[in-house]
């Protein structure tokens, strides 16, 4: 499943610079709002689901080479956070749904 398809199926808003995400194929995922847990548990290529939307989310994602972050429950990052994400090649996506629902849908779509 490509990221482009996921964005359509989950009706996600692309916060960073939009482009064609057909070449991005997420490998598994990780859900947590605790940054150190993400550092310990996430793997390169994962989708990270969180409701944290501050600068350190981008730092942690870049650190772990997690290129896709889904911000849940309408968490709205500041403009600088989006800018930083663009610089660091981190894709920020947003949804109004809670993390639980998002993870459930990702699982059903085969992101495991």
């Amino acid at each position, binding site marked *: 499943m490509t990221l482009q398809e996921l964005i359509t199926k989950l009706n996600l808003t692309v916060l960073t*610079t939009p482009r064609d995400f057909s070449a991005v194929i997420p490998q598994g995922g990780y859900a947590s709002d605790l*940054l*150190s*847990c993400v*550092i310990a548990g996430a793997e390169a290529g994962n989708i990270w689901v969180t409701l*944290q939307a501050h*600068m350190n989310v981008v*730092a942690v994602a870049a*650190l*772990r080479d997690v290129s896709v972050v889904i911000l849940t429950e309408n968490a709205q990052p500041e403009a600088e956070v989006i800018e930083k994400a663009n610089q660091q090649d981190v894709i920020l996506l947003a949804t109004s749904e809670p993390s639980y629902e998002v993870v459930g849908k990702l699982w059903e779509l085969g992101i495991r």
Partner: protein
Amino acid sequence: MSSTLQELYGRKGRTVTDRDAQEITRIEEVSYELRTADVMNRDLKCLAPTNTMRDVFNVLHKSHISGVPVLESDSLVGIISQEDLMRAFADGDQDAPISKYMTKKVMTVKSYEPVIRALEIFSNTKVGRLPVVDENNALVGMLTKGDITRGVLVAIQKDYQDEEIRRYRASHLFEDIISDRTSLILRYKIKPRDFDSGGQASSHIKRALLRLGASPQLARQCGIAVYEAEMNLVIHSTNGGVLRIQVEPRRILMQTSDDGPGIPDVSKALQPGWSTASDLARSMGFGAGMGLVNIKRCVSKMEIESSPKGTKLFMEINLRSDETFKAPPGSSEAPGV
């Protein structure tokens, strides 16, 4: 690349897809940085309104160009192109003066304007070439889409070379500089409670290591250790602290130091899940009590010295033999020299 430029020129009345938008970004940036004078053709071929259409044919044919500006006593009065020539030849009117067929309302760009301005004109009109004039409206060059494409490509190529050179220089640092023990020391000041810049030092370090030729895995490992250490200073230290990284051909030493308040119980701090983080830090997703545990996983050796006067955290990563930075042959790197 050139197809993207084509799309940029022909954008009018067409939806820009996500893909275009992404690829245009750097090109647009360059288009703002470059001035028309940087990319224009300065080798001007000009004709007068009294020249004939046959003269136009000769100039275009000889110079392999598709249009020329028409000047009358040094001021620009028109532009004549291949298309005008075809019209004249179709009418059998080869000996007519240029003034009969030239475009008289000439659009121009200023030499100091950014290339993007010319691109706007190209995409909003049908013109194929633009005379470039200076601040006194004197003709100084001609500009076509092809000139812009070349200029943009050269600029992007230069970006790429600059990064290559940086990488090359950095990755040969240890090889090119000969000493008995070479190390590169990076220092960062970390401010307390500055969650917005927190994580910046570690991202700089990760990038520096990649430029020095570290494997992505090694850079990630160091990045994690340094990030946790950096955030510890942001979250816990009274006055912030200093992060010091020492890169040597065969190992990386990392150290943070601060002046308080110290870790109340170091053995507890090493247990997964134990944390003294504030509510603010916790609300931002810190304070999982995994910081030191994460560091330990990433480094070969970790030591903590802590008292109410301050904490020093030492971390060391010994590089595997296939990961070592290039060192000059025969140099000794015995620790403590």
